[in-house]
């Protein structure tokens, strides 16, 4: 069945296993009563259960929670945070600013886009090695423009989040996972080519997630709020100052490189 017949089958109703609310009565979350079976879950555990349908050990939960904590930077210069802060400065609402900032976090050079590519690469590299392929060849094949997502960093070669995350992984005996070890092996190969291509936080967390059994899509969904905690302070501080004081830009900062000035010579009359 396809086309209109398929659409007709789904028209006017929701067929779901995700959940539903029966207003005034109860709510079901992935087949369990939210206010009974799941009432004692913490929020992050529930979020992960919603994504994966699985439960994680207390040690894994501690690490997963830390993956967000360690990258919560309330620095309004960072591009996604800057959107939230500009919303505060322009007297927009906090939810508009933060929702847009989260959407902007799906970037190519950081955040969602690079994380997704990093876990995909690590999972594929592991499979390739299981099939007997040498890691150096897998790395060489994965290089795009001289780099691999998760290695190297836009504004700084070093990543201050690596050491505390590794310390936490060691504390919970989770530092020897196959993908974590693989990620550092990849780093050795890449640094031999270019010293700037050290492992970044995106690759390390992707490796942790892969060790915990996340698929790329599950990992992408998990990390959507990863930068969230840093955004409200940016919004609030900008909103607390007089409007327009966040990064005001004088005309002189624009370096024009376009066409010379010329008159408009339209060929069609206006309405």
């Amino acid at each position, binding site marked *: 069945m396809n*086309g*209109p017949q398929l*659409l*007709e089958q789904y*028209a006017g109703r929701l067929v779901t296993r995700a959940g539903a609310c029966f207003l005034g009565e109860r709510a079901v979350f992935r087949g369990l009563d939210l206010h009974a079976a799941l009432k004692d879950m913490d929020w992050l555990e529930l979020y992960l259960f919603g994504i994966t349908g699985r439960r994680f050990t207390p040690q894994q939960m501690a690490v997963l929670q830390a993956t967000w904590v360690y990258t919560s*930077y309330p*620095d309004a*210069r*960072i*591009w*996604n945070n*800057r*959107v939230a802060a*500009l*919303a505060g*400065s*322009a*007297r*927009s*609402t*906090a*939810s*508009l*600013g933060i*929702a*847009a*900032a989260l*959407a*902007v976090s*799906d*970037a*190519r*050079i950081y*955040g969602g*886009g690079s994380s997704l590519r990093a876990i995909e690469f690590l999972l594929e590299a592991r499979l390739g090695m299981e099939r007997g392929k040498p890691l150096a060849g897998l790395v060489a094949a994965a290089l795009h423009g001289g780099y691999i997502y998760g290695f190297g*960093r*836009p*504004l*700084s070669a*070093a*990543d*201050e989040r*690596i*050491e*505390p995350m590794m*310390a936490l992984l060691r504390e919970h005996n989770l530092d020897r996972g196959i993908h974590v070890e693989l990620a550092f092996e990849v780093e050795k190969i890449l640094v031999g080519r270019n010293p700037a291509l050290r492992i970044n936080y995106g690759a390390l967390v992707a490796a942790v997630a892969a060790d915990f059994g996340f698929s790329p899509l599950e990992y992408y969904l998990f990390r959507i709020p990863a930068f969230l905690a840093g955004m409200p302070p940016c919004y609030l501080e900008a*909103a607390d100052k*007089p*409007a*327009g004081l*966040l*990064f*005001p*830009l*004088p*005309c002189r*900062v*624009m370096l024009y490189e376009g066409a010379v000035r010329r008159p408009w010579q339209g060929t069609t009359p*206006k*309405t």
Partner: protein
Amino acid sequence: MSEETIRTRIWQEEAEPDNAFAAASCHCHGYDVYGDLLAHASWIEYLFLLFRGEAPSAQQARLLEGLAIALANPGPRDAAVHAAMCGGVGGSTSASCLMAALAVGAGASGGAREVRLVMEDWLVRGTDLALWQSSLAAKPIAGPADVWPAPGHPAGFDPHGVRCTGPVLQTLAHLVEVGCGADLGCGSSLAWLQANRSSLESAAGLPLAMSGVAATALRDLGCTPAQGEMLHLLLRLPGAAVHALEQKEYGHKNFPFFQVELENDPGPAQGIGNCVEGGA
């Protein structure tokens, strides 16, 4: 159970004979979109029709077109465009760049919320100059708890301005020229604003801003404050889009990251070797 329905006065469709999920024809406020408007209406005329429900007069179309050009690109210094460029430099999705522009451009300082507030002021004050002057002289009052931050300056005026800028004056003059005259379908608020600008600016202690001109033009086009807010959001997106695309090409190394002066820096933590190195 009977099928649930969506009520609309704007859009009417007839299904293809063999597919209930595909439209064979679409009518907008009674006009055949693909059989008539596509060939005979301009984008601006269609935009007016969508919002107002009637075809515009020639003057209304010219007024909306002028406003659309004036608003299309506030330039990279504008906070909404700046936000869109923040998406561009990181290679964020196109939609997120526009979301950023919308989120910031929605605000009550230079954004669509400010336009709406001005239009609401017009509804209350009309052309009563004394009422405008007394209201503008009063400190803006925060309403009951709201998701919108409390207004910090009189809506429609530039909180950091020194004098009414060239683009604002040129836009006001042009819109007055093309759009004024009640017998031609447009209101006369723009002409009143132009005639009383100096008095209003004196009362506000601030120069007129583009938001004030835009709000007044939207009033003269017959828009409600809610329609004006929505149109303002839409009409400013082209500039945000092209500047986001341009900065994506230039890349983050050519985009300001600014200096930071952290006032409560605890200094490097002990026991974590590389934590002093900063960055994104």
